[in-house]
């Protein structure tokens, strides 16, 4: 079955896969070939895809998933592959966002605050994904 992961910035993944585990609003779902047609919203979390014996790990923040005739399309707000996450950059982003939220929570307009929170969420997810990627590899 064919999987496409697209974000507003770029196309993150394109290729044949055997299984997809995706974080939906109602919990994680697994998709195998010949899955029924489906449209669902995704939440923040890990997306795991299995190609032959290998697993690939992605971090997602929100989006949609469509299955249509064994064609899977994931429209994510943001998606990063685990081994491509730069932990230092994510760490710095986390720190910056935390500081903004802590120090300026009362002065900042709502939009900026929400943006900082979204950034923090993304950074935490990146770190989390990178962490579990490492664990898997060390095993």
């Amino acid at each position, binding site marked *: 079955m064919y999987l496409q992961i697209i974000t507003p910035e770029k196309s993150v993944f394109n290729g044949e896969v055997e299984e997809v585990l995706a974080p939906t609003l109602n919990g994680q779902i697994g998709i195998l070939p010949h899955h029924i047609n489906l*449209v*669902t919203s995704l939440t923040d979390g890990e997306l795991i895809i299995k190609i032959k014996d290998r697993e690939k790990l992605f971090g997602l923040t929100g989006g949609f998933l469509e299955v249509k005739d064994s064609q899977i399309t994931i429209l994510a707000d943001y998606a990063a592959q685990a081994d491509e996450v730069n932990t230092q950059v994510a760490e710095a982003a986390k720190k910056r966002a935390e500081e903004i939220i802590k120090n300026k929570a009362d002065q900042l307009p709502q939009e900026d605050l929400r943006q900082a929170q979204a950034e923090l969420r993304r950074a935490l997810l990146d770190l989390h994904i990178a962490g579990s990627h490492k664990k898997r590899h060390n095993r």
Partner: protein
Amino acid sequence: MANIHILKRRINAAKNVSKTTRAMQMIAASKLKKAQNAVLSSRPYVNKISEVIDNLIEKTDKKYTNPYLDNKSGADKTLLLILSPDKGLCGGLITNLVREFTKYQKETPETSYVILGKKLEGQVLHFENEIIASFPFGTTLPSFSAIYPLIKIIEENYNSGKVKNVKILTTEFESLFRQVPKVTNLLPLSKSTLDTEDNTDDFYLFEPNKKELLDSLLKHYFEMSLYQKLIEAYLSEQASRMISMQNATTNANDIIDDLQLEYNKTRQAKITSELLDMTGVPGE
């Protein structure tokens, strides 16, 4: 015969102009490349999301309503969002925008304005129009978060029924050499697909449910299409600036060539007449 010092000075001035315009051309070219990438890479997302929405709307019953699709017919006002550059020196782009704006204004006087970009702000103010908000456009590629304040203002006015529809005036990018200002509809989103026949053959599962999915999909779609307009306007600006600066550089170089020729002629004439003086041949 022109004074040789004045000629020299004019040559220098033209050289400086050529240097400046050349630098601006280079800057615009590099910004253009980035903008082009941004437009191209967001295209698959928009195509796919509209495909999913079309598909979903087909399968939703006709009673479904959403503020993004609904035409609230209470008010007769229109909200026009104008995207214009902050800076000039981009050829005919701003003049064309102003012309389009004047035309629009004549046709639809009942309009409130939201303006992004300084260049058209003064123009709109000049006609004592109702301006709800005005932002600077900025000189770098607009980030996605730039649309949130816009969306907030649009939704405040649209959802409360103060305006019946939202339109956008922006410069569409056709090619490097052609950018066309155009007024297009933003809200309500067109629902041509609603009339298509149900093909109930393929069964679909929806989670959590169709309504919630459509709500958030439409919101996403609206945000994305607005963002696309933003980067396209930016792309047009840079393309227009690059081309006009290229022309300016060529013109400056032509002027330098002409002046240089005249300078050389004048100098040669001066030397010849001095030589004639020295050899004692009667000049006149």
